[in-house]
C-alpha cells in the first residue's frame, strides 16, 4: 500500500451533542493520503456519528475538521465541493429509487462535477464493471439484492473520483451470504490507493485491510494503532474486552 506523509483529513477535538446527550466528547484523528482506516467499537459509542460528522451530515457541536489543512466548518468554505470529494457508502445503500443503476452513478457526476453526459456514462460504466454490476445498468434499485445494491452504491461513490471514501457499516444490513461480495469489492478498492475510512463490525476484514484502527467508545477514541497493536497488544481494558468477543467466535 502506497503511503505518503501528507495528512489529508484531520479531526480536532470534535464534539457532538444531540439534545442532552453528548455522543462525541472529544474525537481527534489524522488520516494520511492512501491510508485505510477502520473505526471499531461498541454500538452507540459514536462510530457512525464520527463518520457522519466528517461528511457534514451532522453538524459538529464543537471542534474542527481540516481537509488539506483548511477548516471545512468555516462559513465561506464550499461544502458541496468538499462533499463531492469525500464520498460515502451507507448502511442502507440509499440508492435513488427513481433512477436506474446507470443513472444512479451518473447523476452526481453531471450535476455536481458538471461532466458531460457521455463522459459521466463512460466513467459510470467503468466503475460498474469494477464492482461487477455492468449487466444490471437498466435495473431499478428495488429489483436488486442487498449485496448488488451496495455494490452499485460503491460504484456511485467512486464515480465521483473522491479523495476519501467513507463506509458506514456497509455490510451490516446484508444477509450473511452477500457480505463476501461487498467486502471483496472493498478489498479491490483498497489496492487502488484510495483513502478509505470504514466503520465496521467485520473484525477479520478490518484486521486484514487496515493500516490504522481506531477504537471509539463513549464518544472518545479509546485506543488507536495498527491491527497488530490493537488485536494482539491492546493497552486499554475496554479494547481488549471488546475484541475478545470476536476472537472467541
Amino acid at each position, binding site marked *: 500500500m502506497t503511503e505518503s506523509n501528507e495528512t489529508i483529513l484531520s479531526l480536532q477535538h470534535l464534539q457532538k451533542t444531540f439534545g442532552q446527550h453528548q455522543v462525541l466528547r472529544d474525537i481527534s484523528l489524522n488520516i494520511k493520503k492512501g491510508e485505510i482506516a477502520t473505526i471499531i467499537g461498541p454500538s452507540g459509542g459514536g462510530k457512525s456519528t464520527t463518520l457522519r460528522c466528517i461528511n457534514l*451530515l451532522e453538524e459538529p457541536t464543537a471542534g474542527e475538521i481540516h481537509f488539506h489543512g483548511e477548516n471545512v466548518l468555516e462559513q465561506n468554505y464550499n461544502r458541496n465541493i468538499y*462533499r463531492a470529494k469525500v464520498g460515502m457508502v451507507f448502511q442502507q445503500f440509499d440508492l435513488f429509487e427513481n433512477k436506474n443503476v446507470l443513472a444512479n452513478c451518473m447523476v452526481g457526476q453531471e450535476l455536481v462535477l458538471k461532466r458531460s453526459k457521455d463522459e459521466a456514462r463512460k466513467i459510470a460504466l467503468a466503475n460498474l464493471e469494477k464492482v*461487477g454490476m455492468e449487466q444490471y445498468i437498466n435495473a431499478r434499485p428495488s429489483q436488486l439484492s442487498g449485496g448488488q445494491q451496495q455494490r452499485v452504491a460503491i460504484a456511485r461513490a467512486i464515480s465521483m473520483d473522491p479523495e476519501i471514501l467513507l463506509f458506514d457499516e456497509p455490510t451490516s444490513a446484508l444477509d450473511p451470504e452477500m457480505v463476501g461480495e461487498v467486502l471483496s469489492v472493498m478489498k479491490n478498492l483498497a489496492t487502488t490507493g484510495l483513502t478509505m475510512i470504514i466503520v465496521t463490525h467485520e473484525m477479520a476484514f478490518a484486521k486484514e485491510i487496515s493500516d490504522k484502527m481506531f477504537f471509539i467508545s463513549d464518544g472518545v477514541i479509546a485506543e488507536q494503532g495498527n491491527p497488530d497493536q490493537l488485536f494482539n497488544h491492546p493497552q486499554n481494558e475496554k479494547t481488549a474486552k471488546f475484541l475478545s468477543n470476536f476472537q472467541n467466535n
Partner: protein
Amino acid sequence: MKSRNKWITALITVMLSFIITSNFGITQVDAKKDDGELKVAMEANYQPYNWTQTTDKNGAVPIEGSRTYANGYDVKIAKIIGKQLHRKVVVVKTEWDGLLPALTSGKADLIIAGMSPTAERAKAINFTKPYRNSTFVVITKVNSKYANAKTLNDFKGAKLTAQQGTSHYALIKQLKGAKRQPAMRDFAAMRQSLISGTIDGYIAEDTESTSFKMVDPDIKAIPISKMAGFRISKEDSTTAIGIAKPNKDLLKQVNQVLATIPNSERTKLMTTAISQQPKTDETSKKGKQDPWLVSVWKQFGGMILSGIGMTLLLASVGTIAGFFIGLFVGIIRTIPTPTSRGKRWFSKFINWLLSVYIEVFRGTPMMVQAAVIYYGIAQFWHINIDRTLAALVIVSINTGAYLAEIIRGGIISTPEGQFEAASALGMTHNQRMWHIILPQAIKNCLPSITNEFIVNIKDTSVLSIISVSELFFVGTTIASQTFKFFPTYLTISAIYLILTFTITRIFNLIEKHLQGNKNYNLMANQVQVGTAQDMEAKK
C-alpha cells in the same frame, strides 16, 4: 408556535370576511354609461317572469356567457326598456340570492326578476315604480284536503313553504295554524316537493299557478289576497325593477319608459309570456311520444354537452394549475431554515404567509370563496372578471391549498436516506429536490392527486353560485323546465359517474406506467461484458 399560527390565521379569516360583508351595499360601482349593453339580472328559472330556452325563438335574448337564451315577462319588459334607451339587452343569469350582489358589484345594470320592492331591499338598492301588481295564491294539489279552503284559518295543520329570501315566506304567518316549513331555493324545488307530498302547498303569485297548471293539471290555486284579514303592504304585492343606488339617471330613464306601458299592454305581455313558456314534449306534441331521454337529448343535448365540457375544463385546469401551485408552495415550505438571521426571518414570514393561504382556502367552503371572490373583486376593485375565468381561478387556488399539504407530506415522507445520499454526493438543495426527491414524492402523491381531480369534478357543482354553466347547473335548468326531477338528476349523476370512473382508470394507468416494469431483461442491456473480474467479484 403552531397553535399560535392557527389563531392568527383564524383571526385573519374572520376579519377578512367581516370587512367584505360589511362593505356589501356600501361601496358602489359606477355605472358604465355607454357600453351599449343593458345587463339585466334574473334567475331565468321563474316562469312566467323569466326562463331559459335553447333557441332565440319568440324574441328571446342571449344569456351572458352561455349559448342559451332567456325569455318571459321580465325579458319582454327589459326589451321595451332597452329599445327606448337604445341599448342591447343581455341577460345575466343569477341565482336569487346572487341578484343583489350582482347589481351592487356592477355585474348587472338592472334587476328585472319578479322582485318585490321591500323596505329591506330598498336599503341596499333603488326600485322603480312597479311594473306589475300581483295577487297571491296557495298552490296545492286538487285532491289535497286544503283544496277547498275558504278562509285564512282553513290552512290549519297544512305544511306550507315559499321561496327563500322572498316576501312570500312571511305571508305564511297570516295563515293561522299552518306549519311553516323551511324556505326553498327555487320554484322547481317547491313544485317537486308538492308533487312528492313532502309539503301540502306553497305561497306564490297567481302567475306561478298558471304556468304550473300547464304542465300539471292536478294542481289547484287558492287565492288568498282577497280573504278576510289578509294584509299585505303595497311593496310586497308589486314587482319593480332594481337599480344600483348611485345610478340615478338610469332610474329616471327606466321610470319614464315604464310610464309609457299601459296596464292593458302589461296584461297582454303576461298572457303572451305564459303561452310561450317552454313545455315538455309530452304536453306539446300529442300522439307519438319520444322516450324521455331522447326528447331531453333533442331539446337539451347541446346544453348537456357544454355542461360536461365546462365541468371537465374546470376540473382539469383546476387540478393542473392547483398541482403547480401546490408544488411551489410545498417546495417552499420544505426549504431548510437558513442559517443567517435576516434570511431566517424572511423565510419564517413567507412560511407564515403560505400557511395562512392554506388554512384560509382549506378552511372555508369553495362556494363561499366563489361568492366572495367573484362579487368581492367587482365591488372593491371595480374589475368585472369573466365568470368562467373566476371559476377557474377559484378551483385552482382551492386545489392548490389542498395539494400543497399533500405534496409537502410526500416530500417529508421520502426516506431520509435519499436526502442524505444526495447530500453526500455534494448536490445542492435544489438539485436534491428536482432530481431525487420530487420525482419520488410526486409519484407517491399521485393517488391523492387523482382523488383531488375526482373531488373537483364533483365539487365544481358549487360554482353554480356564480352561475357558471357546468353540468349541475345545466341539470338544474333542465329539471326546472321539464319538471322531471328524478330522471334528470339520475341522468346527471350517471354522467358524473362515467366521468369520474373514466378518469380514475386513466390515472391508474399513469400510476402503473410510473411504477415501471417489474421484470427487466438482462439481455436487453446495452453493454454485455462478463469479465473474469466480474466473476471474481461475485465469488
